[in-house]
């Protein structure tokens, strides 16, 4: 068997897999390198994997030159934290109610949830309801509420909770525990794996979301980070218009547009890269469990 380990097909497959995974890493390195490069190097030599001259000036400009970056960062963090917390509670309770076998109306409620996966009014009615009737335009809630109750996540949670032995619910009930108590004290702690998986997915969704911001946020100070990045990529002019004049005076002549874009990109993906090693394990496990259940 020893000879097999060095067989040709093993090497070829290993090489292909390695190449693809390097290709996945490559753009990240290029962006980091670009953010640390001087503007001259980028203009003259293009993007490189290793910066010729390392400088932190674009990060300085981003963080000191304009308050909009800091504002956007705070908005993104707020939306992610509030959205994720609410989402776990709301969908957790929804899943719990649908998981209670002894509950008479659980099938009716399940159908109520399933229907939302089938029919959709489409973008236009949804937008009009949110803006004209719910008055969400230019509010923080516009980026939190619309995706909050999610049928798919609720069913994931429900399926997990239905695997918990029914006796547990029954005996808690016999001991006189209220439904709230059973959920928060008993079932939720037992459901940490699924709640954590859903929570991570939701958090990632909120952090990376910019569609809701694009639809509902016109006010500059409410723009999330991703949207700001998008704006910046299409034009660097906003820095000139929004930044604190004194600090900008000196640099406005030579705004390093390319490296600034890269620096903001790094800032945007920063927290995710930081969380990644921890989060990835959870995701893979969660997905694997979901896939093999059948």
């Amino acid at each position, binding site marked *: 068997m020893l000879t097999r380990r060095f067989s040709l097909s093993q090497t070829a497959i290993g090489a292909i897999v390695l190449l693809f995974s390097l290709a996945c890493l490559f753009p990240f390195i*290029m962006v980091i390198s670009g953010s640390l490069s001087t503007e001259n190097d980028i203009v003259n030599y293009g993007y490189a994997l290793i910066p010729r001259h390392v400088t932190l000036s674009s990060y300085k400009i981003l963080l000191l030159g304009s308050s909009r970056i800091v504002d956007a960062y705070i908005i993104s963090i707020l939306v992610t934290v509030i959205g994720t917390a609410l989402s776990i509670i709301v969908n957790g309770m929804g899943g719990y109610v649908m998981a209670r076998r002894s509950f*008479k109306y659980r099938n009716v409620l399940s159908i109520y949830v399933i229907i939302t996966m089938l029919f959709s009014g489409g*973008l236009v009615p949804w937008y009009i309801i949110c803006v*004209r*009737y719910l008055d969400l335009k230019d509010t923080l809630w516009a980026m939190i*509420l619309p995706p909050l109750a999610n049928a798919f996540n609720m069913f994931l949670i429900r399926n997990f909770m239905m695997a918990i032995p029914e006796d547990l619910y029954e005996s808690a009930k016999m001991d006189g525990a209220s439904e709230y108590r059973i959920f928060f004290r008993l079932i939720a702690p037992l459901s940490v794996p699924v709640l954590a998986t859903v929570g991570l997915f939701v958090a990632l969704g909120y952090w990376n979301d910019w*569609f809701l911001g694009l639809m509902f946020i016109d006010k500059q100070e409410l723009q999330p980070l991703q949207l700001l990045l998008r704006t910046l990529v299409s034009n660097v002019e906003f820095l000139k218009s929004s930044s604190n004049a004194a600090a900008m005076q000196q640099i406005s002549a030579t705004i390093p547009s390319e490296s600034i874009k890269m620096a903001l990109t790094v800032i*945007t993906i920063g927290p995710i890269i930081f969380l990644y090693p921890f*989060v990835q394990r959870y995701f*893979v496990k969660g997905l694997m469990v979901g896939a093999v259940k059948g």
Partner: protein
Amino acid sequence: MKRRNGLVRDLVQNHQLLVMFLPVATLLFLFCYLPLSGLIIPFKNFDFQKGIFGSDWMHPLFNNFDYLLSSDAAFRAVRNTILLNVLFIAVGLIFEVGFALMLNELRNKYFKRVTQSLTFLPFFISWIVVGVFTYNLLNYETGAVNRFLEWIGAGPVDFYSEAGLWPLILTIAIRWKVTGYGTIIYLAALTSIDNSYYEAASIDGASRWQQIRYISLPMLRPTVVILTLLAIGRIMNADFGMFYAMVGDATLLFPTTDVIDTLVYRSLRQSGDIGMASAAGFLQSVVAFVLVLSSNYAARRIDRDSAIF
């Protein structure tokens, strides 16, 4: 009267659970059920002040649809949506199954884990960031690809005005972003195959290739069929995030990249043409509904557990 009492008693008895369901019920009502009433918007001459029900009916009733169906842009968007999605699904299937098979063949556990982690990484970033990466690689002056083309002696290509190249570019971008993620389910299916099949096969003298062909692939078949069917159910819905972040307002690329979702978005938010946008959205919702139902029905026929409902 007695029945009524029974119902009231039921509701009182279960009030705790009903209260717990209340947030979900309210949110779904506001963001999913209320918009359904908006499906009448394309039949109305929508006036923002008068609202959905207050607006006057369209005269003639199907005017918005006539306008939509006679527009070249709408035809182009429908065609692009379907063709691009078919391309994405087909290429995705080959890549994800192929990559899962390759990972499954690797014997070095450490190498396997590291490479799998690396390929999963792009899943965590937003399409906006992918858009920046793409721009980084493809832009005319400083893009890495153009630098490379110059270096090997070919002229630079202005990718952001070459519509013909974008189906390819978008396909590559999707594969780059989600292959690692999409592979996981296939890999899970592969690792759950009982090892004794392979042992028996190798005793009978089957090569690794034969084992893949006659054991791994048939075992993957149900997963492949179901995931593909469900993807077909979503064929009318393009990934707006991807298109908007990658293509944005690059009008020159619209011949191959404008899809229903981006068309609706532009009509709604930029040109303010609610009539056109709502008619396009209406058709999209109806077709999507039929597709979701039928693909789910088909998936259910194959494997009861795999269907969503």
